[in-house]
């Protein structure tokens, strides 16, 4: 069931009405049942997977907590079970293909996959939540006693398919002391859903059609055209995923629950490390807590830190998809983070030696603007690796991006015919829209900082909701592509 489908538009109000109309003790079971129905609406059989993992991890939690001496083997078993499940469903084909390629020169062919494997929706997200749970219990957190609450933590439908990745310490207390119905929360949740839909169906979906042509046939475009497609994809993926997160958070708020934010104006990041503090926050903090720190984190020699960064980001890349270009995207970000760490260390050393000019330059207003622009472009190049269907195509695009082969006016008019044909909400306004979207970031930063929406008069807020509803009704494309992060 997609958040941007009519089915969800019917499903959500029914569940909300049932939830609030029921006695308090029935609310968690109702939400759990709704979450399982939500999951089964795609392929009913996969309910067995989420149920099975829930039961196994529930008991693992208790075993880890109770065994004083044998905690580690239990933890190892729990993490291995979760990872093996993830690897089986997500990486079996990738491993088989990689093995085939590697063994080909030796004339050996590994056996073909004996059956088809379908990737269950949301597996990457709920498996990470289970790993977080067992590791935190191992580290001393108390396990969840109520099986109902634990099941709902893992399957809560607003966050089930694409996060945000929740922490049980924040989430479970909300079940134990359920919130009372508040029209204020309800309004906030509903307007967040509207904003999410606006980002998804109006901005991301329309940009998607524009981006598609450029990334499928880069040979038809010049470098400046490809920069345009790359910028467009940067905003597409941001609006797609942050739109999804807004709908997820808004849906949760309708039940009085709060789930963590996932984005904090990422394209205003001043450096790549700052970017990862603003982009997919629930994943980056998960990777930090359950991969980077266990690997040694920032302790040890600088080379160890670089290695840890590379490993963490490479695996983070692979988490996004079982394909070489995702791995390379991860490696690229690992390398950028390592380079940034080097630069930061160099800056500190210079400062310690009385040469504060570099820090002063970076921290100046001009320096901040330039470093924000620089970081945005570093991220954009990463997006090429992420979006391109294969590494070869990504390579071709990156090559063209750097070897400027034309001036802007050289953009072939015929090449723009594709986006012109079906979704001119974006084209020809794309040249106006992209700067507007960039400015949006700055404006939203101000709006967030000043709590403008909260403070504005009721009539203004109502008009904002009305405008969003109207635009969603009229301008959403008939065919809406799935959320990008659903594939992970």
């Amino acid at each position: 069931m997609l958040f941007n489908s009519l089915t969800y538009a019917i499903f959500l109000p029914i569940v909300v009405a049932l939830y609030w109309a029921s006695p308090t003790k029935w609310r968690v079971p109702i939400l759990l049942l709704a979450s399982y129905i939500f999951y089964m609406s795609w392929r009913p059989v996969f309910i067995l997977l989420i149920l099975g993992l829930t039961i196994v991890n529930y008991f693992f939690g208790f075993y880890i907590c109770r065994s004083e001496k044998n905690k580690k083997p239990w933890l190892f078993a729990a993490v291995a079970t979760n990872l093996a499940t993830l690897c089986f469903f997500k990486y079996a084909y990738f491993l088989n293909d990689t093995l085939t390629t590697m063994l080909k020169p030796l004339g050996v062919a590994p056996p073909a996959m004996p059956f088809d494997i379908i990737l269950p929706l949301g597996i990457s997200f709920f498996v990470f939540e289970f790993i977080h749970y067992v590791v935190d219990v191992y580290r001393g957190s108390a396990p969840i006693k109520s099986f109902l609450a634990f099941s709902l933590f893992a399957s809560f439908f607003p966050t089930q398919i694409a996060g945000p990745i929740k922490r049980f310490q924040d989430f479970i207390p909300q079940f134990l002391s359920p919130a009372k119905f508040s029209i204020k929360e309800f309004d906030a949740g509903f307007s967040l859903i509207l904003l999410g839909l606006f980002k998804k169906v109006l901005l991301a979906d329309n940009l998607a059609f524009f981006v598609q042509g450029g990334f499928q046939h880069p040979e038809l475009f010049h470098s400046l055209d490809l920069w345009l497609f790359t910028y467009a994809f940067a905003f597409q993926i941001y609006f797609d995923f942050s739109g999804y997160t807004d709908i997820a958070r808004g849906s949760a708020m309708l039940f009085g629950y709060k789930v963590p934010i996932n984005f904090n104006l990422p394209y205003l990041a001043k450096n790549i490390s700052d970017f990862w503090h603003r982009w997919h926050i629930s994943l980056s903090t998960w990777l930090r807590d359950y991969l980077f720190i266990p690997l040694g984190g920032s302790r040890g020699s600088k080379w160890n830190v670089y290695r840890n960064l590379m490993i963490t980001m490479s695996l983070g890349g692979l988490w996004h998809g079982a394909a070489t270009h995702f791995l390379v995207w991860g490696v690229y970000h690992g390398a950028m983070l390592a380079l940034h760490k080097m630069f930061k260390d160099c800056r500190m050393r210079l400062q310690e030696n009385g040469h504060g000019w570099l820090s002063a330059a970076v921290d100046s207003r001009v320096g901040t603007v330039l470093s924000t622009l620089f970081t945005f472009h570093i991220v954009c190049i990463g997006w090429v690796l992420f979006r391109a269907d294969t590494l070869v195509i990504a390579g071709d695009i990156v090559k063209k991006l750097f070897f400027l082969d034309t001036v802007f006016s050289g953009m072939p008019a015929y090449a723009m015919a594709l986006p012109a044909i079906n979704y001119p909400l974006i084209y020809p306004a794309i040249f106006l829209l992209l700067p507007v979207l960039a400015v949006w970031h700055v404006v939203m930063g101000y709006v967030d900082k000043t709590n403008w929406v909260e403070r504005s008069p009721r009539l203004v807020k109502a008009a904002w909701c009305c405008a969003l509803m109207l635009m969603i009704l009229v301008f959403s494309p008939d065919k809406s592509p799935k959320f990008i992060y659903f594939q992970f």
Partner: protein
Amino acid sequence: MAKDARVKALLSSYVLLGFFMLLAVDFGFRVADNYFHLTNPLDSPNRSLIWYSVNAFANEQTAPDIALLGSSLMMTAHHAGDATKINAMQNEVSHFHSSCLENFLAGKIGHKPTSFSFAIAGQMASDAYLITRSLLAGKKQPKVIIYGIAPRDLIDNTLPSPASTETFKFLSRNSDFSDIALSARYSLNEYLQFGLEKAFYTLSHKANLVAMQHRCAYSVAPYGMNAITVNELTAPFKLRQIARRELPDDNGANELRVGPYGAECEPFRDNTDEYRQRYACIKNKTYVSQLSYLEDLMKLTREKGIQLAVVNMPLTTSNVSLMPKGFYDRYKNTLSGLAAANGASFLDLNRADVFDQKHFADTVHLNGLGGVEFFKLLSNELALNRSFGAALSRTH
């Protein structure tokens, strides 16, 4: 008291207020459109074949004597046949008069009838019925309708429902199909969408509003860009392929051209796999439903006094052999039975003695040579049939 507080809290909701504002805007738009005619019924953000046909038909001064209906089988026969007969390139989005049919018939019946083709790729029997009901009526009612049909037009298993075709969507914007609104939709999503369109005037006029937005977007585009229109461009084939996948019902004015049959014609394209899939699992619901639309079409034409010829289109023997055993004969018998019961004529032009592989561009579509041959044969059959002759000699 508690109830009062709850009502007060509810009324303080800005989302609810926003929703009421939306209803007010929607109502305002409905009233304004009714009084000031803000929207043009023929406006569309995408240029589908039905859009081109309806616009061209609206510009016709008089009713045609003959209207052609059918899917791509009839459409290619019409365009390729005329291109070959006239020996000139034909543009599929602006070529609506069948030169072949008019001229061949002129030789048989003594005067040249006029024709208009509503044959559109992907047309189902339900679409043919809706075109007849909403367009071929009143002052524009033809004397004869020739409906070229093949099994695909009744069993296409890629069709979610009759209401999902571009023809249905476009025509339902300007015609009242409320009597078939529910039966033409199969899924919950389609019912919901229909309900929302009924409730919100803005949603039911989405196409008009998007078309308006297109014009606005072009007008605010940076200097130079607004000069570009799709008609003036020739997009690279690869890009067009993507565009067609995304929105198959959108064609540039210069994109669909057919040349005369000759030395430079395209080689035979083997589309066996495509049709193997199409015939693989025949959805009985679709078949039964499309047959009932065909029957409705026959009843409607009889009621209006239009002579209807249901023409079984030529197919290659290899294509027929892909169908489940006995299906093709059953299909022909059903069609001929329906026609006999409803005052229509069934003409089986799938004649192996006339059409062989050299007449086909692929396993189902006729090429230019086949197109000419098809209309020659059709004219013969029509001329031999007294009721068609009488209908064509009648004045409008």
